[in-house]
């Protein structure tokens, strides 16, 4: 398997080439404002000349572009929302509890109709298809192309969402429908919020993916493009363009997956020290532990699963106050190469302290010779305290853990930390995020309520569904493995109701198989 993994961060765009499970090359280039020219530059910086891409299986890209669009309130499209839950839920309509500015950008119209199901699969109210058709025409007349459909208990029974989506497609030929049940589990408002964010980002996602494809062909690559997801897996580019919210938090997840891969460790705390922040996560079975709770994105409550992370303002570019002995949270970010002392600038950064202490050799050492040894010590002690405190936050018990230190700023992590058994550093750790992208697998997930089944039967049904979703997303059905199965009994419900969450992962279906076979045939006929 030969793959290129790319991680587009705020400061750097990292790229690695992996062959036969080994990191062959790793490069770092500056992230560009348009994102894609940085991606093209990163691919070009890799020396692919030997075989070029003849044997390349995939190009995997992780990007923070979509979440940044929400946070910065840019490139968002107006969305029409059809909620199928009347006569319930109308007192809290779509966009309730959204930040006003964001709601104004995304709200193209709100419609509520009768329909939906109960928790036990019974129909809640008959689906009002007449109203659905009338609304579809109204949306067409408004000129809106992006529509969200969210029905009561749709994760249990998506049929109403699918029926309304079909009507929309009949009435609006080029409509893009986001069905909420595909974006979140139980939790009507949070699922709807995720679906609205998703729909409002589809135009940007399509544009971005097209630009990535363009960057790919510009450097002459032919391999299929995948985009990394919040859970450390990847999706085919076309799917990522349809579900941009699933690519929100991929950066930190990629570096954790990369750290697991490079170190061979499956259970550890990972700290990824970048230019601006240090991100802490907990690896369990080689995957980041997930935050099993509400996550706010740009001020909007959502419930989709994101890695459980702690992020602090500590990185190679962090501002240093020598007098107060404080680090960050401000950072010079991508201007590190011009503003840090060692690079001829006049801002004291954590990188300068690292150079002064002899932890790393960068730029012009003489330019930090004036910093007093005591000041350097005090800053490093503060840095150690910050790391210890946050490693402890991630831990689940008091015993010492293993800490994997990755990222360009990993030199700031000392060898000895309280509560840490050993600090592991890995080769290519500076590009762990790109490695994580390169080795990513494809996943399928289910979050549903089951009734009248034994626990084993319920988990088995959920697993089957998750597996078919993984295959749909591009996984090789032969390689599927269960990552997580969790079942929670539900209060007040009869019939032994339980909520089951299952996740499976598998390798990407190799697109090279056919080619390889053909090549072999050709070779044989030649001989």
């Amino acid at each position, binding site marked *: 398997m030969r793959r290129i993994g790319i991680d587009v961060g705020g400061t750097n765009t990292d790229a690695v080439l992996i062959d036969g499970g080994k990191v062959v090359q790793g490069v770092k280039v500056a992230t560009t404002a348009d994102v894609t020219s940085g991606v093209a530059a990163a691919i070009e910086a890799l020396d692919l000349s030997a075989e070029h891409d003849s044997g390349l299986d995939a190009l995997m890209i992780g990007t923070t572009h979509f979440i940044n669009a929400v946070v910065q309130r840019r490139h968002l499209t107006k969305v029409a929302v059809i909620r199928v839950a009347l006569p319930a839920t109308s007192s*809290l309509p779509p966009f309730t509890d959204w930040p006003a500015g964001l709601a104004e950008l995304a709200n193209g119209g709100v419609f509520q109709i009768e329909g939906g199901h109960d928790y036990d699969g019974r129909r809640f109210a008959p689906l009002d298809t007449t109203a659905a058709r009338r609304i579809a025409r109204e949306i067409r007349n408004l000129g809106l192309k992006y529509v969200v459909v969210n029905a009561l208990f749709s994760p249990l029974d998506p049929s109403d969402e699918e029926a309304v989506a079909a009507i929309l497609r009949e009435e609006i030929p080029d409509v893009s429908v986001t069905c909420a049940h595909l974006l979140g589990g139980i939790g*009507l408002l949070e699922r709807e919020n995720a679906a609205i964010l998703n729909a409002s980002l589809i135009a940007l996602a399509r544009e971005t993916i097209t630009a990535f494809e363009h960057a790919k062909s510009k450097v002459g690559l032919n391999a299929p493009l995948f985009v990394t997801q919040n859970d450390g897996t990847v999706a085919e580019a076309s799917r990522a363009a349809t579900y941009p919210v699933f690519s929100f938090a991929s950066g930190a997840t990629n570096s954790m997956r990369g750290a697991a891969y490079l170190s061979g460790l499956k259970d550890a705390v990972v700290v990824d020290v970048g230019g601006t922040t240090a991100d802490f996560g907990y690896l369990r079975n080689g995957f980041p532990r997930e935050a099993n709770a509400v996550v706010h994105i740009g001020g909007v409550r959502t419930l989709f699963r994101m890695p459980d992370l702690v992020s602090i303002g500590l990185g190679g570019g962090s501002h240093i106050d020598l007098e107060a002995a404080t680090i960050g949270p401000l950072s010079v970010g991508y201007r590190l190469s011009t503003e840090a002392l060692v690079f001829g600038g006049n801002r004291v950064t954590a990188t300068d302290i690292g150079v002064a202490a002899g932890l790393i050799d960068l730029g012009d050492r003489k330019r930090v010779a004036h910093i007093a040894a005591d000041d350097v010590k005090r800053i490093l002690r503060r840095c150690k305290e910050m790391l210890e405190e946050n490693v402890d936050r*991630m831990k689940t018990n008091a015993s010492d853990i293993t800490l994997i230190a990755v990222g360009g700023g990993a030199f700031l992590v000392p060898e000895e930390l309280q509560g840490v058994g050993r600090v592991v550093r890995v080769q290519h750790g500076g590009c762990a995020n790109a490695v994580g992208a390169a080795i990513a697998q494809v996943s399928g997930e289910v979050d549903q309520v089951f009734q009248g089944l034994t626990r084993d039967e319920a988990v088995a049904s959920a697993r089957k569904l998750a597996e078919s979703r993984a295959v749909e997303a591009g996984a090789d059905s032969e390689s599927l493995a269960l990552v997580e199965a969790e079942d929670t*009994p539900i209060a*007040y419900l009869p019939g032994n109701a339980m909520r089951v969450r299952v996740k499976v992962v598998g390798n990407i279906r190799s697109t090279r198989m056919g080619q390889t076979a053909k090549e072999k045939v050709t070779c044989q006929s030649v001989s």
Partner: protein
Amino acid sequence: MRQLSPEDIEALSVGAWILGTGGGGSPYHALLNLRRFYDAGVRVDLIDPDELDDDDAIAVVSIMGAPLVFQERLVDSRLIARAVSAMEEHLGRKFRAVMAVEIGGGNGMQSLLAAVHLKIPVVDADAMGRAYPEAQMTSFAVGNLAPYPLTSVDPRGNEAIVGKTSSWKWMERVSRKLCTEFGSIVATCKAPRTGAEVKKWAIPHTTSKAINLGRAVAEANREHADPIAAILKAESGKFLFSGKIVEVERRTTEGFLRGRTVVEGLGDDHGSQIRIDFQNEWIVVWRDGQALVSTPDLICVLDSESGEAIGTETIRYGQRTTVIALPAAPVFLSPRGLDHVGPRAFGYDIDFKSVFCS
């Protein structure tokens, strides 16, 4: 009578969640509902129980159901008002005011939502002073007042009236069955009370108490002070333990969410751990096999940093929590009160000893 301000509403949601002792439902959706009304200029009045006339009729309301279903059906203010209107029709008389059956969690706010539509005030009192899982666990049941009638309504237009039951426990059984049939969420208007009964048996000033708690937390957070210290001070509470959740076990039996969680000590509590058993609400705290605190004392599990309450449905592995106790309403400390809500009412063969009596 005083008008509740927008800040009071926000504070009430925080304080009611703390008094929920892990249950009572999250106040989040009720708060969103109220914010919408408040944004539109509507205001709710709070009336002191002492201001009620003896023969005033008071509606006692709550939302019953599965927290999971709440997440989909959402709280609808009109539903709770409809339960009250159905009771008015049944009785053939209008209510003077509306009151929450429990101040804990989302139920501490349902009375306000009803009040908005009915245009009557909310009584500054409830019948639990916290949240409890069952109908007979109220001060009215301790006072042996009539458990009936009851109205139970769903959003589809179904309405049920339970005219009479032989006991509070029967009322609990019947209303639970109705709730399940209606889709596991209903709004209920419980046995109406007279002003005299409220003055004698209700637990007074619990809405104000919840608001004060919420204000204490907000103020502490604003000043970057310790919100938990503020809670302890506001309600003369007792600090019990601080640590990290390392184990959560849940199961449903007879329609209740039962289970336990283990908290491993941090800081001063480093090296020891406690176990907390729950049945919808936190029921008993154990340390080295000894019951440290039990119901009716209020056991509150709070986020160590924000001071926000954590529910039995939402507690999860790795959370940093501080466990505190708040004093119970005196009505539950009598032998008769303990029959209804003491540890034995929850199946624990232990004697109740308040942490506030040592």
